[in-house]
């Protein structure tokens, strides 16, 4: 029971038949999501905020697959998000008037929404493949610069394409998104990340992170694994972008800059490179922090100026935070461990170990 995931799989004693294990979490999640949607449907602000949080979780968890588990360094995640957002947005816009015959409008809309999301995700994954293949063959640093460049290329492309609304952005995308849909994808990305981490593929990724030369010598197709991790990560970034496009009334190139990429990197590093739950906690914390401060200052009666200062110092503070974190605790809050590995002793917990 030492390594969460991998070894527990070998337990034959579990009460759940193997055939069901794959789908069970999904079956469990659906009613929870339905419940969440039902309770939150009436509060647009909670819906909006939770959607933003959810999208950031998807971004952080998916980036963690590349930056955390595989030890590569991508700093262009916002670029893949942009691809997903624009492709899904354009798809939805062009399918706006179309309904699937024989089903209610709401259902048809949601089906088309999922289709648009998948289109965005697949395009992002394709871009991930095209960008990753040359750069992942090279030494790690090159990935950083190439992903950064990719983000810029996407921005320029969007700015010059009439169909994407150029600099003004794309508005009028049907707002199909809901808390349930966002968190369904959050759930999926977490499930995927955890299952990769616990599988033989995940072990190969960890091996690459630990020692690329040794991994290669032990028969791990390091380039192949890196590219695959990158593709999956880009896919979910694309999905996150697609969701984003369906609850933010307008998407424009300014939303997917280098700064956005860095925000995601900060989330992953803060949570601990390699820790999925760490990425989740950091994403929730960093997304809600500004809103929390807003409420705090609002409650204190400080209008404008103080809250504004806080917003202003956010970016330099992120920078200093990164430096201090790397110096004091380079493994991030959780390191490679998961939330349940660091819970207090009196809670049921697993033995320490890497997935």
């Amino acid at each position, binding site marked *: 029971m030492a390594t969460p995931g991998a070894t527990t*799989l070998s337990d034959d004693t579990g009460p759940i038949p193997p055939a069901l*294990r794959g789908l069970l979490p999904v079956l469990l999640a659906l009613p929870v999501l339905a419940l969440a949607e039902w309770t939150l449907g009436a*509060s647009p602000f909670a819906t909006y905020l939770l959607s933003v949080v959810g999208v950031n979780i998807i971004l952080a968890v998916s980036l963690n697959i590349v930056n955390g588990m595989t030890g590569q360094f991508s700093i262009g995640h916002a670029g893949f998000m942009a691809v997903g957002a624009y492709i899904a947005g354009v798809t939805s816009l062009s399918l706006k008037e179309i309904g699937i015959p024989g089903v209610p409008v709401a259902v048809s809309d949601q089906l088309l929404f999922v289709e648009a999301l998948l289109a965005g995700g697949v395009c992002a994954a394709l871009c991930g493949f095209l960008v990753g293949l040359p750069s992942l063959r090279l030494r790690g640093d090159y990935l950083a610069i190439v992903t950064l460049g990719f983000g810029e290329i996407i921005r320029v492309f969007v700015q010059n394409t009439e169909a994407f609304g150029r600099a003004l952005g794309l508005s009028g995308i049907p707002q199909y998104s809901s808390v349930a849909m966002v968190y369904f994808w959050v759930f999926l990305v977490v499930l995927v990340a955890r299952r990769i981490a*616990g599988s033989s593929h995940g072990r190969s990724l960890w091996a690459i992170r630990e020692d690329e030369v040794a991994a290669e010598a032990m028969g791990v197709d390091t380039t192949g694994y890196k590219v695959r991790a990158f593709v999956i990560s880009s896919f979910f970034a694309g999905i996150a972008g697609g969701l984003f496009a369906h609850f933010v009334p307008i998407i424009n190139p300014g939303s997917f800059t280098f700064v956005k990429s860095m925000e995601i990197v900060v989330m992953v590093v803060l949570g601990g490179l390699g820790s999925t739950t760490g990425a989740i906690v950091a994403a929730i914390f960093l997304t809600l922090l500004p809103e929390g401060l807003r409420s705090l200052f609002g409650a204190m009666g400080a209008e404008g100026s103080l809250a504004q200062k806080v917003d202003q110092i956010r970016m330099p503070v992120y920078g200093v935070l990164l430096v201090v974190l790397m110096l004091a605790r380079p493994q991030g809050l959780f390191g490679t461990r998961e939330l349940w590995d660091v819970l207090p002793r009196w809670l049921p917990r697993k033995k320490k170990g890497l997935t």
Partner: protein
Amino acid sequence: MRRLAPMLLAALAVLAVACEKKTQPTGEGNSQPAAQLPATAQGGPVPAGNDVIVLGEVGALTGGQATFGISSRNGIALALKEANAAGGVKGKKLVVRVYDDQSKPEEAAQAVTRLITQDKVVLILGEVASSSSLAMAEKAQAAGVPMITPSSTNPTVTEKGDYIFRVCFIDPFQGFVMAKFARENLKLNKVAVLQDNKSAYSIGLTEVFRQKFAELGGKITVTESYSQGDTDYRAQLTAIKKTQPEGIYVPGYYSEVGVIARQARELGLKVPLMGGDGWDSEKLFELGGSAIDGSYFSNHYSPDNPDPRVQKFIADYKADNNGAVPDALAALAYDAARVAIDALKRAPDTSGPALRDAIAQTKDFPGVAGVITLDAKRNAVKSAVVLKVADGKTSYVTTIAP
């Protein structure tokens, strides 16, 4: 045990939901028609206290367009101060709640949602950038809360619905003004265009200018582009120079225009530059130095306007802001706030539909940046002024009516 992960997450999500719910006063609705709450909740959002009316403002206080957002905030603050000093509206004081959107539309959408649902504002003012205004308009329209944008000039903003208004003219008009001025006043035949490809505003002005200038019999020699944040425009200017234009239309922001002017002169391009309201800033003179002298731009108002109303505004603004001369954005924001206050006074109550109708009836309202009459498309019908830059200040040249 590994099934713990998803379960934990699900539990976390429920927890988060629960927390979120708690912070919200129960039973309060939003004015979304789809809400399953009693219809009574729809009518009038209740202000925070009984003796105040809360207005909402979203602006870019940080990020690329921070100077615009800050000017707007100051203008609105001044208008509210005056209204409150005069006894407020319907016996109540006015308060404005300002949120920063970091010049990002998704943040603007979040902020406006917060204003509508948490702060229960009766009316929303903002934004400068059209992308952000579009995002806000969508939310405000859906919630049935009126919104007045002081200075978003993109035509699509007010097309979002009948709750969205503006107190400035739109991009096509500004492009038209400069084309007319260049052709008729300056008598130019050949003009080159240098646009900011990162800004929808710049692209919008370019399009109309090109079309109008050609219609008036002029010739556009070439259209080149740069991106906000660039500092070297020599390549574009060299290409422009080859076409030997008699003027260059640069509908960008002051932060780049000043440097463009210097480099144009450096390359031996001595022709006048022309632009739009994005030029309006004290910084233009510092960045452009003497190179910017002899250039023209269209604007919403001129500080030289001898009208006592304008001069009083300028004096009051200076007094409140360390002597800073109000730019057009401050003037427009001041006007927008006063239009809003005027509508609040006229409206029977502060509900969304009542306010909407009151704003829509605004006619011949004397603003500092021109007389405001809202047309059927909820845009202000106003004339524009053309200013000339010389010796570190602007001077009024002419007014062009629609």
